[in-house]
């Protein structure tokens, strides 16, 4: 038998390259990748994504000059539109951090929206029942939101750790459960009698994140920035971050040297849920000033996108969140002036993720194009 195998498949040091048309493509795995090369290739992927975006927008009937106008000129021409971007950046950064903390330990939290809903529900409960003294009200709402988000991720986190239930599906399914519970409240006990829409009553002035004094930017942004720095410390400096990196790099090895993988994963998941809860609070108290039935829409994917593009680095996430904020604001004005449906922003985000993810191939592989010799 052994000799037969040898005859059929002689040991070769190199596999034959693939043949494609006029030449052949040789693939080689890079053993070492410099950060610069990685950054360059990913930037290239981003550019390809933006070009694809421009093509999609042009087929939808927006001319190239108009695209340039909406995405670049009008964003940076007035302090009002810069503030509009910054207002979007706050919650986007928070959900990006939530995703980054979870992804750092390979916990795929796709339930950011559900956790935002429960964060906001808890915060709104504090607001509606006027719990605590007024100067502390916002802090109490923040704490409540943290607990709400944490509670909602506790179920999938425990199911994963105790039973091995896939967290991608469980966190996602709980989004739908949370959404229906939100509707139950908004069409029932919490409905504002003064409004025709299914909203809660408006928060009192002390229950809203007030403006910081420049344009209409609220305290949501500083809260998000502080959170980013805290997350950076947690993931890159603290002992917990070291353990998390270990779990991420090689779970089996981590278990072998006695790192409590369960505790590390559970902690990261609960933190992720808590941060998502804060994200809900930041939208409700910072932008909408009440609980609505759609305040959370689209944040899960934006969070994933931000964490993915920022390589789970909380400080890079600030930049990426601002970039996504630009997309959101430009998308809104495209909606108003060119009747482009809001779904376009979602499509653009997906295109960018796809092109950047695809570009990673060129980070890890060296591609040779070999002309066919005669």
């Amino acid at each position: 038998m052994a000799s037969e195998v040898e005859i059929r498949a002689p040991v070769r040091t190199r596999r034959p390259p693939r043949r494609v048309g006029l030449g052949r493509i040789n693939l080689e795995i890079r053993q070492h990748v410099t950060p610069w090369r990685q950054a360059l290739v990913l930037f290239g992927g981003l550019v390809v994504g933006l070009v694809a975006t421009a093509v999609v927008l042009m087929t939808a009937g927006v001319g190239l000059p108009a695209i340039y106008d909406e995405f670049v000129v009008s964003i940076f021409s007035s302090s009002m539109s810069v503030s509009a971007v910054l207002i979007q950046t706050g919650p986007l950064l928070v959900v990006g951090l939530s995703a980054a903390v979870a992804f750092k330990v390979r916990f795929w939290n796709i339930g950011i929206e559900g956790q935002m809903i429960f964060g906001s529900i808890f915060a709104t409960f504090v607001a509606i029942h006027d719990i605590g003294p007024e100067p502390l009200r916002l802090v109490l709402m923040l704490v409540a939101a943290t607990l709400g988000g944490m509670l909602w991720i506790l179920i999938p986190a425990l199911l994963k750790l105790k039973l091995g239930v896939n967290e991608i599906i469980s966190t996602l399914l709980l989004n739908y459960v949370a959404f229906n519970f939100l509707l139950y409240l908004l069409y029932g006990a919490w409905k504002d009698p003064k409004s025709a829409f299914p909203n809660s009553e408006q928060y009192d002035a002390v229950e809203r994140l007030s403006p910081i004094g420049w344009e209409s930017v609220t305290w949501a942004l500083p809260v998000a920035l502080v959170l980013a720095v805290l997350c950076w410390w947690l993931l890159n400096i603290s002992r917990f971050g070291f353990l998390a990196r270990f779990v991420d790099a090689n779970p089996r090895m981590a278990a072998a040297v006695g790192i409590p993988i369960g505790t590390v994963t559970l902690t990261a998941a609960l933190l992720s849920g808590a941060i998502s809860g804060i994200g809900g609070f930041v939208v409700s108290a910072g932008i909408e000033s009440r609980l609505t039935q759609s305040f959370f829409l689209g944040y899960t994917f934006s969070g994933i996108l931000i964490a993915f593009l920022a390589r789970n680095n909380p400080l890079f996430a600030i930049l990426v969140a601002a970039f996504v904020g630009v997309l959101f604001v430009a998308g809104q004005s495209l909606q108003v002036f060119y009747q482009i449906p809001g779904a376009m922003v979602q499509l653009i985000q997906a295109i960018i993720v796809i092109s950047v993810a695809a570009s990673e191939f060129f980070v890890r592989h060296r591609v040779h194009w070999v002309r066919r010799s005669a």
Partner: protein
Amino acid sequence: MDFLVNWISNIPGFAVPFALASLGLILTEKSGVLSLGAEGFMLMGAMAGVGAVIVTAEPLLALVVAALATALISLIFAGLVVALRVNQVIAGLAMVFLCQGLTSLIGAEEGWTSRAIVGLGILPIWPLSDIPVIGRIFFRQDIVVYLTVPIFLAMQWMLNRTETGLKLRAVGENPEAADSTGVNVSLYRAGAIFCGAALVGFAGGYLSVAVARIWVDGMAGGRGWIAIALVIFARWHPWRALLGAVIFGGIEALIPRVAAVGIQVPQYFMLMTPYVATLLVMVWAALYGNTRLDEPGALGRPHVREERR
């Protein structure tokens, strides 16, 4: 009694989307590719199906269009995970959001959104359809319901009795070994993604063309995710997936009927039941029976030929 017959005769229509979608997912995942894009693929099929009905007024043709459109869009996914070896979780999620954005955009641009259509009609099988009770449950359904069991039979046969099926499973269990025997891993995986997505898209098309008879944004409503959970519950066995689909079809068919009979359950808690039930099913699957044993060995792992193990 009438309530019971009414309920049971509605189950097949609700069960078929789950059944065909999970069958498509089983096909893809048997090749070792984790397909998280199901929700997006169902939306694609649903939107394309309604669009095709509006353009051609042919519901059956529309289902074919739904399958083809979804298979086409799945080529992006195939390119990402097979050729470029992108992380399959990221690629799958990106596909969901790409399809959500794309379907919502096309639906709005073409004016297909919220427009009632003439759907797929029922096809009574004459002498049998007049049998009381049984006739109504089994022989007054549309053609896709009748075809579902044969489709399952064909898939079971293909996977377990043909060389193609054998190679496909080999690619999913151990791509390196399959590669060394000369099986083209990339081709098999891309093919499994393409055909699997076509089935999922067909299921989505059925949902909009035969069940809802309308297209609205995000109308799959998590059914793609439930189908993914069903595949895990079924441990990649087609017949168990069919059983799961019937259970979930039963739950879905029950929701509108409970309120109609006058049982007082808050509406929104009723609407939660499919998702809670899915979660319970996953817990049950985790408690009883080791899922890992039946999972394709290389599920979610890209095949990197240049990397020697």
